[in-house]
């Protein structure tokens, strides 16, 4: 099934009235592609993802998934539209087992236990290491293992659009590489991926298209090839040194 594209137009959003963080962001995340959003601290990357994920209502502008305007929908309604979110930092249910965490990912299938069991089995087949850990409390696992649980939980309802916020924060380089590799595998399945990241080099390595935000607005954008040159110069530019 082809994932619908995500289109953001003229998006304004913020936390304090009169002080918007996003001031007219435009963006398109196409199906089967990883669209990366980069930018210095305070550029509005995480705010952008909060709006798209339904945790923050936009002040102006639109967030369209295919033909549906999802800008005003709360986060809990996104699952039914085929949107999955991998938030920044730890988001497992720490006192619950790995198995319970993954099953809770299928909340939208709660009235169809057979379908839920099949979806959980599919995820455990995809990540066989988690099967061995399934009775462990998620909070007792390493950072990388918890990330795997979060990815598995996100995939239970088989979302076609994935919103990913700084997936490598707090992970060892090896595990971070595994996470980015997994994002590539998910792209190969035709999913739309919107990746917001601080790790410029790793994000560009997997990107199909890159947007750079500056002070809540679109700054520059282009294909990966346009950003593969002097990354150091770009970062120095952000820092103003």
């Amino acid at each position, binding site marked *: 099934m082809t994932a619908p594209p995500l289109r953001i137009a003229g998006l304004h959003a913020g936390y304090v009235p009169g002080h918007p963080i996003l001031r007219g962001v435009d963006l398109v995340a196409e199906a089967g592609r990883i669209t990366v959003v980069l930018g210095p601290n305070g550029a509005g990357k995480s705010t952008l993802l909060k709006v798209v994920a339904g945790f923050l209502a936009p002040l102006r502008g639109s967030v369209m998934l295919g033909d549906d305007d999802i800008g005003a929908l709360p986060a809990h309604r996104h699952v039914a539209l085929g949107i999955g979110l991998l938030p920044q930092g730890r988001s497992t249910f720490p006192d619950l087992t790995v198995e319970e965490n993954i099953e809770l990912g299928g909340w939208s299938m709660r009235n169809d236990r057979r379908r839920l069991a099949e979806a959980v089995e599919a995820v455990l087949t995809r990540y066989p290491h988690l099967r061995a850990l399934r009775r462990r409390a998620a909070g007792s696992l390493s950072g990388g293992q918890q990330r795997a649980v979060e990815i598995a939980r996100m995939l239970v309802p088989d979302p076609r659009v994935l919103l990913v916020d700084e997936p490598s924060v707090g992970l060892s380089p090896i*595990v971070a590489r595994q996470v980015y590799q997994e994002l590539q595998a998910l792209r190969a399945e035709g999913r739309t991926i919107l990746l917001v990241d601080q790790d410029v080099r790793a994000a560009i390595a997997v990107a199909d298209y890159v947007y750079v935000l500056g002070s809540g607005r679109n700054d520059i954008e282009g294909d990966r090839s346009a950003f593969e040159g002097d990354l150091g110069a770009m970062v120095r530019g952000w820092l103003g040194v």
Partner: protein
Amino acid sequence: MFSVFLIPKATGSRTAALAAWGVWLALLAGLAAYGLFGTRLFVLSTLATVFMYVVLTQAWNLLGGYGGYLNFGLVTFFGIGAYTTGILFQYHELSPFLTAPLAGVAAAIAGLAIGIPTLRLRGAYFALVTMIVTFAVQILALDLTITQGALGIYLPALPLKPIAVERLFYFVFLGLAVLVTALVWAVEHSNIGWALVAIREDEDAAEIVGVRTVEVKWAVNAVTCFIAGVVGGLYAQRIAYIEPTGTFAFDISLNVVLMAVIGGAGFWQGPLIGAPIVLLVADMLRVTVTSEVNRVIFSMIVILIALFVPGGVMGVVSRWRRARQPKPEDAAASGLPAP
């Protein structure tokens, strides 16, 4: 909504589970027998109070224990229930036994009105607001004409001997305790229970997986307030006099939280264990240590339990059960495919 969500798993021996249920049922039968044949007024009265607190603590347990929302204001809804039956008797001469359900409805409406804005707050902010609301409502009860201010409202004593009155409330509160415990058990084993646990563990993650966190909290809070209101209405009839300071006493809220925490918040068994421990220890200290030092000793016991028995009695039992399970095979890798 009450279908079991997660895939069923074998969680231990069936014999052990049956034995545990057998112990609870035997205890219930013993309590019912004592209610029928017991003749000591003090014991009947103390146990009736224990049952009343079991009901209140189970109600608190729904959002406080399973949902992780620390509510220090349950007495607000208990008091609203008590005043609803008091006012309905005062102005319409309706018996509190008849109007107790209305007391629950009034408390649930108040719970919704207060919960809709406050349940958007989390952690310490929510706990603080629940305390402030109690004091505000208490002041309101002191100032309003309909509540007769500090004078309070007298209700007619039941035309029965004291021991018959206590026996009656013994069974009323025992029956309610059984009903509400069954409700909490059902919630623990339902979708709502899992939604509450997910909210307690990580509310944003719960929202991400599709739980309607705000609506779940509102609904469960309304049920909690309904139960507290019914208990408050019956309490008014039991003591036959209500006034703002005693009816909205912060001690009642505090006792409920202590009972849940000591017994084990988030377990249906927790209030059944915590309520008698807290009440009986407090009563024993009151009798044996006559000065105010008994409060200091009680507080020290609570602090020691909080330090050394985190999760309460049921937390210890739960950890012991987990430790007995066979160790899972470990995996050093992240769980994701290697690069």
